[in-house]
C-alpha cells in the first residue's frame, strides 16, 4: 500500500526529522508507530497524506508516486486516507456533527447518506449526545473522538491515527483501539502512532520503532520497548 524508499525530511529550519527511512506497509496491515517525543512519527505520517513533501527519497501509494502527484490530484489521495491528527484539527465554527459530515460532503456524498452515516459513526465513538456541540465546548478526549469519527466516516482504504488516545482514559482508549481493530478486520490498513505502551504490548501487532528520525526496530508482532537510545 505504502512504500517509502530512503526518505529524508529536513524542515526549513534545518531540523532533520527523518533520515533515510525505508518502509513497506502492505494492504490490510495494522502497524504501530512508536518512539520517543520528537522521533519523527508525526513527520512520517504527514508524508503519507502529503501534508509535507520529502526532501529526498520517494513514496508510493498503491504503486503511484505521492511525491510526483499533481496538485489537483491531492484531494483524491486524501479521501482514500482517513487521518486522526495529533492536534485534532476540527473546524472551529462547525458542530461535531458538521465536522464529521464535512469529510463526507467533500466526496460528493448525498444528503441521505450523510444523514445515515454521521450519527452512526458518532455513536460508534460514544459521542451521540455531543453531536450539536462545537469543538470549544468539548473536552480533550471528546475532540479526539470527533477527529476519529471524521477519519473513518468515509470508509477510507487506510486510517492513519496520530496519537488518537493521548487524551483518553484507558477504558475509552481500549474501545477506540477496538474500533480500529474492527476496521482493520474489514480489510482496511491501519497505521497508529502512539505512546500507549499497554495497548501496543497487548495487541501483539507489527511495531515500527523510530528514534531520531531513523527506524530503530521493525517487528512483525512486537512490543513497546523503552530500550531505545
Amino acid at each position, binding site marked *: 500500500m505504502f512504500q517509502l524508499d530512503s526518505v529524508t525530511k529536513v524542515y526549513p529550519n534545518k531540523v532533520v526529522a527523518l533520515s533515510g527511512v525505508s518502509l513497506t506497509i502492505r494492504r490490510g496491515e495494522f502497524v504501530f508507530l512508536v518512539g520517543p517525543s520528537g522521533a519523527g512519527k508525526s513527520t512520517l505520517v504527514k508524508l503519507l*497524506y502529503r*501534508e509535507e513533501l520529502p526532501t529526498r527519497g520517494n513514496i508510493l501509494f498503491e504503486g503511484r508516486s505521492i511525491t510526483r502527484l499533481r496538485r*489537483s490530484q*491531492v*484531494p*483524491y489521495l*486524501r*479521501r482514500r486516507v482517513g*487521518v486522526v*491528527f495529533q492536534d485534532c*484539527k*476540527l*473546524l*472551529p*465554527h462547525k458542530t461535531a456533527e458538521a465536522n464529521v459530515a*464535512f*469529510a463526507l*460532503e*467533500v*466526496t*460528493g456524498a*448525498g*444528503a441521505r447518506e450523510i444523514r445515515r452515516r454521521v450519527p452512526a459513526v458518532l455513536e460508534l465513538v460514544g459521542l451521540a449526545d455531543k453531536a450539536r456541540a462545537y469543538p470549544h465546548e468539548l473536552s480533550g478526549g471528546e475532540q479526539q473522538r470527533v477527529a476519529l469519527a*471524521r477519519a473513518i466516516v*468515509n470508509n477510507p482504504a487506510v486510517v492513519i491515527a496520530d496519537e488518537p488516545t493521548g487524551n483518553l482514559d484507558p477504558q475509552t482508549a481500549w474501545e477506540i483501539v477496538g474500533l480500529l481493530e474492527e476496521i482493520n478486520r474489514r480489510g482496511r490498513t491501519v497505521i497508529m502512532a502512539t505512546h500507549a505502551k499497554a495497548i501496543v504490548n497487548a495487541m501483539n501487532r507489527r511495531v515500527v520503532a523510530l528514534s531520531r528520525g531513523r527506524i530503530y526496530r521493525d517487528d512483525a508482532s512486537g512490543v513497546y520497548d523503552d530500550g531505545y537510545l
Partner: protein
Amino acid sequence: MATFRSLWRGFGEALSGVVSNSVMSVASISTVALTLLVLAGFLLAAVNLSHVAGVIESQIQLRVYLDANAAEEDVRQLEAQIAGQPGVVGYRYVSKEEALERLRGYLGEDQDLLEGVEELNPLPASFEISVLRPDLVERVAYELQGRPGVDKVSYSAEVVRRLLEVTNVLRLGGMTLALLLTGVTVFLIANTIRITVFARREEIAIMKLVGATDWYIRWPFLLEGVLLGLAGAAVAALAIAFTYRWLLDMFYDRLPFLPLVTPQPLLQKLSLVLLGLGALVGVVGSQISVRRLLQV
C-alpha cells in the same frame, strides 16, 4: 447532481460563515457600505457638475443680426433655415425694442449714456441661437453667414474657447477622479474581505487536509464575499438615496438657480452600479486571498 448540491451547500456555508464570524462580517459590511457611500456621493457630485456644465454650455449662443431693411419674407426663410441646422437646440427672435431694453440692463447705473440715443434706436433686430455643444458654434455661424437678410453673425470666440476648456477639464477631472476613487474603493473593500478570509486560514488548511478540492473550498468563500459585498452595497444605496433627496431639497431652497439632476432614473442606475461593484469586489477580494491560501 453532485455539482448542483455543492452549489447549494455553498449558500448555507456562506451564510453560516457570515454569522459565525460576525465581528469580521460587520466590519466588512460597514467598510463596503462606507466606501461605496463615498464613491456614490462623489459620482452624484460629478454627474451634477457635468449637468451644470452642460446647462452652461447650452446657453452658448450665437447671434444673427438682421439687415435693417430685410424683407419679411427673407426673415421667415432665415428662421426656417436656422431651425433646420443640425446642432441647433433653440432660437429666439429679438426685436429692435427688446435689444434696447437689454442694453439698458447691461449698462445698469450708466443709463444716462443712452439719453438722446433712445429715440433713434440704432440697434438691429436679431436671432439668438442656442447650439448643442460649443464646438458647433463655428459651423452654424459659417452656414448662416451671407444668407439673404443677414447683416452679420457674431459670437464670442474667446468665451466659447475658455468655457470649452473649463468644462472639459471639469469633465475629464471628474471622470479621472471617479475612476481613481472606484479603484480605491475596490481595493479597500477587497482588503477588508481578504483580511477576514485570511483570519480563517487555519480552517482552509484543515479543509484541504480532509480532502476538499480547491474549488469546493473556494465556492462558499466566493458566495460569502458576494453576500458581504451586496449587503454593504444595499446599505450604501439606501443611505445615498435618502441623502440625495434631502440635499436636493436643501439646494432647491437655497440655490434655486442651480440645475441639479432629478433623483429618479439616476438613483436607480446608481444603486445597480453600487450593487454590481459590491458583488464584484466581494468576489475578487475573497478569491484573491483564498487562492493565495490554497497555494500552500
